């Protein structure tokens, strides 16, 4: 059985350790294993959000030339962690679109470890966080390119919008590269709402809450831009925005 982590463990540095303890060590052993055969394509969309701590651990094995897509919106009002370990075979692709959104005191995090240990695999991860109150949003993204991972193309993009003083966001990109012909891009930015954009929108007649909703919608839509099923993208966006509207 896996021992309970502490914040000294890199992958749990910003986690809500008390909530993890509540879930118990058993929960840590529970990995959902998903294997994609060569050439297969699979897409999974999920909204994670309840009022109890949640831990979702997924292990993806993506076969030669296969494509795995995961789009996840993390909205829970207690600790939520979605963790994805991906192993990419030759020419495989992993696409992640993630959103963490919410207020209160909760920590919501997306944690990925993507292994490129075969040639010409690609991965693209776009995560957006929107938080208020005393909430925290985290994205910890490790990319491991092994010696065999030549011509890897991996990208990570994290942006957070902190709506109020007291809320926070943490980004922790971690790149470990042992091949020499590799493209790995990562970017992280944490900022506040664009006040000039809000004023501009107000000057055209949009009430502050409507302007804010439009701006936040545009902000998180980046994470779902690669989701080709428009209906699903809309469902996920609405799930995220619903949390914003419930905000007290």
């Amino acid at each position, binding site marked *: 059985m896996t021992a309970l982590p502490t914040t000294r463990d890199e992958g749990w540095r910003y986690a809500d350790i008390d909530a993890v303890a509540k879930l118990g060590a058993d929960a840590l052993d529970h990995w959902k294993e998903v294997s994609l055969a060569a050439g297969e394509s699979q897409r999974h969309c999920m909204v994670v959000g309840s009022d109890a701590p949640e831990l979702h651990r997924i292990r993806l094995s993506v076969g030669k030339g296969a494509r795995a897509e995961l789009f996840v919106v993390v909205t829970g009002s207690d600790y939520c962690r979605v963790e994805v370990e991906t192993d990419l075979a030759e020419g495989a692709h992993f696409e992640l679109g993630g959103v963490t959104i919410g207020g209160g005191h909760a920590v919501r995090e997306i944690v990925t470890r993507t292994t490129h240990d075969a040639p010409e695999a690609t991965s693209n991860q776009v995560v957006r966080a929107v938080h208020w109150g005393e909430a925290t949003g985290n994205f910890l993204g490790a990319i491991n390119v092994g010696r065999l991972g030549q011509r890897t193309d991996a990208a990570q993009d994290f942006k957070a919008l902190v709506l109020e003083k007291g809320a926070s966001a943490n980004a922790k990109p971690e790149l470990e590269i042992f091949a020499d012909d590799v493209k790995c891009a990562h970017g992280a930015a944490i900022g506040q709402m664009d006040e000039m954009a809000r004023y*501009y*929108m107000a*000057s*055209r*007649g*949009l*009430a502050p809450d*409507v302007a804010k909703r439009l701006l936040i919608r545009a902000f998180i839509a980046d994470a779902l831009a690669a989701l080709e099923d428009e209906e699903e993208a809309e469902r996920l966006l609405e799930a995220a925005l619903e949390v914003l509207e419930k905000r007290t």
Partner: protein
Amino acid sequence: MLKIENLHAEIDGKEILKGLSLEVNAGEVHAIMGPNGAGKSTLAYVLGGRPGYEVTQGSATFMGQDLLAMEPHERAAAGFFLGFQYPVEIPGVSNVQFLREALNSQRKSRGQEPLSGGEFLKLAKEKAGLLRLDMEMLKRPVNVGFSGGEKKRNEMVQMGILDPSFAVLDETDSGLDIDALKVVGEGINAIMRSQNKGVLLITHYQRLLDYVQPDKVHILAAGRIVKTGGPDLARQLEDEGYDEVMAA
């Protein structure tokens, strides 16, 4: 229609407007000219309710209502429009979506039914045609990737769609080439020249006034209107410069 009396306003504790008075009646176009730093844009922003611009004394009455007591979006709904000197870019929000939300927000607050998607597109197409702005640009995110001239024409398309009673246009002519200036001038006339509308044009140049004939021209210097005259005053300024005209 718009009556400004003894207006004093400051930014970060620094007084910019120092007792400005001005009245624009329905059916009139007034131009405000003045040297850099005179307070022209401050006047525009104070009237538009931009946060951070504090009125310390005086009043501004718009169609009998206390303009300064209204929120920016309420001013818009009451029929007040501010054309920005530097229109703001809003990534991820399309012009069409933004303007439809804005127009319908305004209509809602006036107790009118919202326009349907089809009705709105017809209106947008008509106004874009008037300003010779490609309809495709209206489908793109607000002002993102627009040239300076396109941004200004987009301001006028917005004005056309929102159809305000009164417009303050802050240097709408700057950044326009000669042909675009003519299009914008004619657009302002088509949208705003009416017995029950008024316009306050803030400009540095006589050229725009060749197309949009003002009824009165005011010189703003050091936070106050120091001279008022007819259209000739603008030509005189162009010939002689501020120092000479103000000394006369």
